[in-house]
């Protein structure tokens, strides 16, 4: 079995896994990192959204081999210790979540968007594909704008 090393939320990890094993299952089933959620397995619902070298990815369609030697950040690694990332804080302030299942992915998508575009327009926010079946979209929009304003 091949082995892959990468930086996970700031800490080096090494896993033995088939090359084509999606990062999502490496995280969840091998490393017990359960923040990224399965919602479709085909990169469509984006509940698993995380970061690879700081950019948004859907770990359900990224093979572990592609992560070797790189930096993987999941929702668990977004905060700085007990200090929440501004997007997480905005999510709390706006009380965005309902069931919460898609929210790690929503937050990671929003954080990636703000990294690219510090003041996203409504059209930018509209391009976020992450599904929220509870329909929290209005609060997501509000929280992104709040996080953007607090910069």
């Amino acid at each position, binding site marked *: 079995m091949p082995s892959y090393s990468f930086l996970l939320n700031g800490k080096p990890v090494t896993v033995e*896994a*088939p090359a084509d*094993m*999606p990062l999502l*299952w*490496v995280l*969840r*089933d*091998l490393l*017990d990192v*359960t*923040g*990224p*959620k*399965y*919602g*479709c*397995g*085909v990169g*469509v*619902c984006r*509940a698993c959204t995380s970061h690879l070298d700081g950019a948004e990815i859907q770990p359900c369609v990224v093979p572990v081999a592609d992560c070797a030697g790189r930096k993987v950040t*999941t*929702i*668990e690694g*977004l*905060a700085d210790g007990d200090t*929440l990332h501004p997007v*997480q804080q905005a*999510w*709390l302030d706006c*009380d965005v*979540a*309902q*069931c*919460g*299942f*898609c*929210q*790690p992915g929503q*937050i990671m998508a929003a954080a990636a968007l703000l990294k690219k575009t510090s003041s996203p327009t*409504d059209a930018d*926010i*509209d*391009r*976020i*594909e*992450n*599904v*929220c*079946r*509870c*329909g*929290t*979209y*209005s*609060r*997501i*929009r509000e929280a992104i704008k709040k996080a953007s304003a607090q910069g």
Partner: protein
Amino acid sequence: MARQLSRRRFMVYTLAASTLTVAAPLGCDGSSAEGVEPTAAGVSTPSDVLVTGTDEEMLVLEVTAANRVVVRLPRVEVGQGITTAVAMMIAEELDARLADVDIPLAEARKKGNQYTGGSSSVTSLYGPARELAATARAKLVTAAARRWHLPAGQLRTRDTMVIAPDGRTATFGSLTESAARIQHPAVSTKPKPTSEHRVIGRPTTRIDARDIVTGRAKYAGDVAVAGAKPTVVARPPTLGGKVVSVDDRAARALPGVHAVVRIAGGVAVVADSFHHAFKARDALRITWAPGPLAALSDAGIRSRLRAAVPPLGTPLLGTRQVTGEFEFAFVSHAPMEVLTAVADVRADRAELWFSSQTPMDARDSIASAVGLPASKVRVHVTRGGGSFGRRLNFDAAIEAALISKAAHRPVKLMWSRNDDIRHGRMRPASHHRIRASHAGGRVVSFTHMMASVNESYEQEGPAAQGGVTGVVSGSRVAGPLPSDSGLYNFGRVSGDSGGVELAMPLGAWRSVDSGTSRTAEEIVVDEVAGSLGEDPVAFRRTTLRSKRVKAVLDKVASTGNWGRTMPAGQAQGVAVHEEYGSCVACLVEIDATDPKKPRVTKVVMAADVGTAVNPRGLQAQLMGTAADGISTVLQAGLHIDRGAVREGSFADFHYARQRHAPLHFEAHIMPSRRDPGGAGELGVPAAAGAVANAYARATGTRPRRFPINF
């Protein structure tokens, strides 16, 4: 629909324990708030009967020595915010800090009311939870009075502490042991009057919000159960298809595969990871027999539904008719968390972890499926990643139990998204024929005939069907159509329903029949207004019976600037709904310049639910129902092609995404001192009706088949 719950009196008991532990019985059923005595709580007579052990039917509050207030909740949290609402009720009456209150979910009980559904949770818990906490507070105050040798009446409570006039404080945790021995509290055990509420009614952030935003919230698939192996099931291409033969040699030869098990729904694979399980599933060579509906597609279902609608009858002489026929497609619940269940079935006992709205029924069904007495089956209820009615049924839990039994090991079964959308459950498709007859500018009769698909199997069994039928069918068309509640002053109101029996996995979908029936009715109301040359809001104002409904309508009309001039292709729409002892109005603005790509740009809702325990939570529920209305009316549904569901993920089941959600949303909560009504499902028909009416006005069309773009 629901049986009446008497809330006149709650006995509150003290349980024999070394820490303060009080219990209040729960009614055996949820109920709409209608008819409930508004001052019910005030006349209760708490008792100090000592009960040994924990009575299963009770809501139990414990104050721990570590100063935590713990109430094990016999309901499930699926995003609706019930844990936060109950924590607020407890914090209010106990004068505890919200952060000191823990609301874990109770495992399946042997008796009592452990049903989450019908928007009944707050209604059913509001009395008992407050009585419970008020009694606990009285005992804590009495214990402090004895410790300090002060009159109990001089003591105050705040922030999970008792406070003496001289400023001394004692945490509840430090008093819990002595409070447990208090037989007769020296201060009142009555809940506060509404006017003194400081927590209830205040917009409050979810108690689990931080866990959610940091990824710590645990769902069934995140629960660590020793040795529980990832498990998936190969399912047939058609609904109800059966395995004819399976060649599992290639699958078994793959690395990391522990077991391949044939079950009623297909072939299960137990493996080291979900990656290995999916790979092995795909390596199975299965010959399938088509399911019982293989000859049936949407057109056939639609024509059978149309034929099953009871006749409208002859209209009254001398009246003019406004009629409409409406069709609604099947809709997936598609909660973000697919069905997931961890099961550990042994020869003499079983233990399961999953999210369930009906854990007691689930436990009994699982016990019978695996051949164990119910007393040997433990069901741990986990938080759910959405439900919308889907977790009334426990298909996956029964499967997981059977797989665990056959594989002789604990398993973590997960349905794939394909499984979830292709194999149900779904909101049944329905057909509605509505006629309003008017004369002299007034509606004199209103008739609504409908038919929907009912779930029916030749050979019924828990393994085949995998879920409750009682709860679902009991909450479906059993009663009169919602229009019979007399929402409008429409003269003679009548209705009836027919059904088409099909072997399809169906389920109650948020707001159940109202989501289709009332939506269709609100469209007809707009068309009647048009036929009479009246404005939709003005017409409703003159024909609605209830002041409360008129008030929410007025609220959205004024705050939503009803009647403002809009460019061509854009329009406003409005609708109202009344149910669960609550009412709601919704105003929508839509841009349908491209009728194939309409965008709801603005949604304004107003709700009167009686006392809104957490207004922010209620606004969130209304926001969700707006997304449901947009989705089901404009774009999200399921096609049936030759006995199979065509859609298979969120790529083709078009539930609303950010680009479909309103750019502006606001929800107004009407002030009220009435006891809480239901709220979780309330907004769906109003939102759906308003979206449809806005679309009709923007496009000059009469929408009849939903979703419109499908």
